[in-house]
């Protein structure tokens, strides 16, 4: 028991060390800091989706909508409300989370394939709104004309706009905050009811858990995290893209989660890292980069059904 705890602690330390020093080891390996930042943000999105998929056991195929809403929320806040990075993050998170909370009340009545279909349908609604409402969202061209602002600590200002390392550490701080809250919830009595629902919905119901209400809460929380990740993504690009709301983007998040290992907390981050790095590398060689990512996905699902991290954990044990 304690040997397992020690091993978990070492793994955790290794993950945080790798993240903390990413700008220093990625650059010599041919990467660049902004790539590490993208991994963090998309990893957070995949982990937010997995909060629902891996730990409550319901598959949303429309989570990009809440990611995209977070991005537009942050962009619009910077453009029209106030030039403040923290405010943009908060408003982006609220927009994604509140829309998720409202639609969630309708979505949680369905299960399985129907749940996935309804999430796609609602997700596409937001995609078309972003696509059509050109005067506000910039339509097909996306939302431009904003940029992340320096962080004002009173005594000094932290430049996160032109200094890539500063921005990476700011994103890492936000990532740690969100991931910490996620882990905290999963270890709580509420988190255990989520796992109960995943493991056996009927048993959960007959233990006195109102299953629909608990799935709604999990869905809503997951949308808040998703909105937060989306807001960060808008800061990464200084741009919000309608395609970020599209269901194909939702599919990418599901792929990251499944490829990395949806039963493990950190799996989706690994999945996102593999996805983003492959995309970055392969897309400079061929426009058909997705075929190769897809091939890898199929191989992982066929041979490591518990994902890359699940496979690593098993071979270590």
């Amino acid at each position, binding site marked *: *028991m304690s040997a397992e705890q020690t091993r978990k602690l070492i793994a955790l330390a290794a993950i945080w060390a790798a993240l903390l020093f990413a700008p220093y080891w990625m650059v010599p390996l041919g990467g660049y800091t902004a790539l590490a930042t993208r991994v963090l943000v998309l990893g957070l999105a995949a982990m937010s989706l997995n909060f629902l998929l891996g730990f409550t056991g319901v598959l949303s195929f429309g989570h990009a909508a809440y990611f995209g809403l977070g991005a537009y929320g942050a962009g619009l806040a910077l453009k029209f409300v106030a030039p403040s990075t923290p405010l943009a993050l908060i408003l982006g998170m609220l927009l994604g989370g509140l829309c998720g909370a409202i639609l969630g009340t309708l979505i949680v009545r369905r299960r399985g394939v129907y749940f996935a279909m309804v999430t796609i349908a609602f997700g596409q609604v937001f995609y078309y709104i972003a696509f059509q409402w050109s005067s506000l969202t910039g339509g097909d061209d996306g939302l431009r004309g904003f940029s992340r602002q320096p962080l004002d600590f009173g005594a000094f200002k932290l430049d996160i706009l032109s200094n890539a390392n500063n921005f990476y550490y700011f994103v890492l701080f936000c990532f740690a905050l969100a991931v910490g809250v996620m882990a*905290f*919830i999963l270890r*709580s*009595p*509420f*988190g*255990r*009811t989520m*796992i*109960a629902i995943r*493991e*056996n919905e*009927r*048993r*959960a*119901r*007959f*233990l*006195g*858990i*109102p*299953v629909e209400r*608990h799935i709604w*809460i999990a869905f809503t929380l997951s949308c808040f995290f998703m909105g937060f990740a989306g807001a960060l993504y808008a800061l990464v690009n200084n741009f919000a893209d309608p395609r970020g709301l599209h269901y194909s983007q939702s599919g990418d998040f599901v792929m990251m989660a499944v490829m990395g290992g949806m039963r493990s907390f950190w799996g989706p981050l690994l999945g996102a890292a593999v996805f983003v790095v492959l995309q970055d590398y392969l897309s400079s060689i061929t426009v058909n980069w997705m075929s190769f990512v897809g091939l890898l996905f199929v191989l992982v699902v066929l041979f490591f059904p518990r994902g890359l991290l699940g496979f690593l954990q098993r071979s270590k044990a």
Partner: protein
Amino acid sequence: MNVLDINNVTKRFGNLVAVRDVSLSVAKGELCAIIGPNGAGKTTFFNLISGFFPPTSGSITFDGRNITRLSTHERVTRGMARTFQITEIFPELTVFENVRIAAEVAGGYRLRPWINRAEAAQVHARVEETLKLVSLETKTDRLVGELAHGDQRAAEIAMALALKPHLLLLDEPTAGMGDQETFQITQLIRRLHRDSNYTIVLIEHDMRVVFNLADRICVLDQGRMLAQGTPQEIAANETVQAAYLGNAA
């Protein structure tokens, strides 16, 4: 006072009348067994009690309150717990984790994003006490899915007990078990009934178990209540013998 009062419930599925005008009262501390041939409507009757679906007509009163239209989880919250013919557990969690979820829900912590030390210790004590009651205290760290069938059933009963129920519904607790396991589960149910004074309604096919345990036996046949009475009365009842018991009695 009666824990459970069922008044003239009927359940129709289209043209099929699965349960027809059945009434049943269960007193506090009583162990009532429901028997009947396959398709007699026993499980449908159980599903009506536990709120799987509402009855077509009739009413159900639990602890003096009308619960006919309440959902499953509301009935559980009011003190009704059940097990299933096919064991319903959380297979990939340990025995301890399975029962802890039940104990936390019973403690009113299910929506809480945190739990303090004192509360966690209380839950912990409750889980250990329950596991001791069902003799699983040496297997707390085993995955439930890897346990023997009898132990899985005991774990399911432990989850129900952790809810501190006023009424325990057991759907065929010895289904699919060998003699040894059947004996263990029968002993467990006897302990729960005699020593811990639980009110229990169970469905059972094994007549040895039924006549061994029950204070009262209810015989269902084709959705109707054919007879009710003590084991002696049921064994002597000619209608029951003709319809069901045959040469078993």
